[in-house]
């Protein structure tokens, strides 16, 4: 119980130190900021080690899956960039990552991000007795086409093409506005979470 109280004090002091930046930059904020960067960087390493490297080494040692030595060695080649004479070997790591990434882009991404999106856009522009649904479908179809036309640079955008691309830009502005609104709301919910922690767990004025 006593230990948990200490933990809450640490969390509360770090939270307040972070919030102090709203007044102006100060030493408390900078301490919290640097602790955050250090712990977050360390956490990234630990997650990678626990999720991938430890199980890989385990499968090599215990299950005789020697084939996983190859990706480990390829991965470690990236650190040759610190030795000038063999620095070019680090490109082999990048080559594998980019090669597999290109393979994924050319195969797995096509269906969910391209074909399925086109299929979902092919909707009836007239649904009998449902004017609202028809109008929504028209806005959706024209919006997708106009957005794509905005990025069509093969010919200069004049006349109908210019009007359509302007409509596409407006549709994108609405999408960016929605994304912005959602981002602000998610940040506000985080802020409320921290305020609730301070009021409830730390100060005990909320029950």
């Amino acid at each position, binding site marked *: 119980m006593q230990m948990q109280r200490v*933990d809450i004090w640490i*969390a509360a002091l*770090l*939270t307040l130190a*972070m*919030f102090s*930046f709203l007044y102006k930059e100060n030493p408390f904020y*900078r301490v919290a900021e*640097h*602790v*955050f*960067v250090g712990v*977050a*960087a360390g*956490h990234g*390493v*630990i997650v990678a*080690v*626990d999720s991938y*490297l430890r199980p890989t080494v385990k499968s090599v040692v215990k299950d005789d899956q020697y084939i996983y030595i*190859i*990706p480990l060695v*390829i*991965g470690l080649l*990236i650190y040759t960039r*610190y030795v000038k004479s063999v620095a*070019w070997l680090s490109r082999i790591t*990048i*080559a*594998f990552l980019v*090669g*597999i990434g*290109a*393979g*994924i882009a*050319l*195969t797995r991404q*096509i269906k969910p*991000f391209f074909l399925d*999106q086109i299929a979902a856009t092919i909707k009836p522009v007239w649904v009998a007795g449902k004017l609202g649904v028809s109008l*929504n479908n028209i*806005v*959706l179809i024209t*919006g997708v086409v106009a957005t794509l036309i*905005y*990025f069509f640079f093969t010919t200069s955008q004049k006349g109908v093409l210019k009007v359509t691309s302007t409509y*596409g830009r*407006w*549709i*994108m*502005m*609405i*999408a960016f*506005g*929605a994304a912005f609104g959602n981002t*602000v*709301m998610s*940040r506000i919910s*985080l802020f409320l979470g*921290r305020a609730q922690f301070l009021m409830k767990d730390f100060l005990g004025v909320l029950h």
Partner: protein
Amino acid sequence: MKRELPVVITSVVAALYVVASFLDIKAFNVMKSHLDKWFLIISASTILLGVINLYVVHASAIRRRKPGFVYSIILLAALAFTLILGLQETSQGRNYAQLYQYVLNPLSSTMYAILCFYIASAAYRAFRMRSVDAALLLGTAVIVMIGVVPLGDVLWQGFPKLSQWLLDVPNTAGMRGIMIGATLGAIATGIRILLGLERSHFGRAE
């Protein structure tokens, strides 16, 4: 050799992955499954690169007694503490879980929470209604924000419905168009990499 070998490896790996995806042959299926796992293992193996760079920058600041070097000491101490604790008892350990719950989680939540004030003030300066585009962006953002809080329903009962319509119809249309365009770009880049035409990721020639 130093430049050509990585280009050849990239093309061969990309080609093998694509061919394996189109052939339902056991040997190719096994190879594709291995490549998927290799991608994760190789990515994980490179994670220390960022930490090494962080160490180099801050160790140099400490050595040279640059202004604010005390903060570099704090950063490296926090990094070392997290690494030692995590390697000793894994991320599932009791003490590590406490470090996550009472240090990392509050700090990251608060860091993102204070950003809401800055993006709001930046938005005020950037999106003042000087054009139709800015008005649409600002108007949508305000309606979406008001629509998801109880206040919106109190002000006008149509706000939640309007907010949902904006998210479901024009927002979907815009995001879908961008997604299709971005995927076309990714496919084009993938083909360029496969053919060995795209080499910018290897950096400058020596």
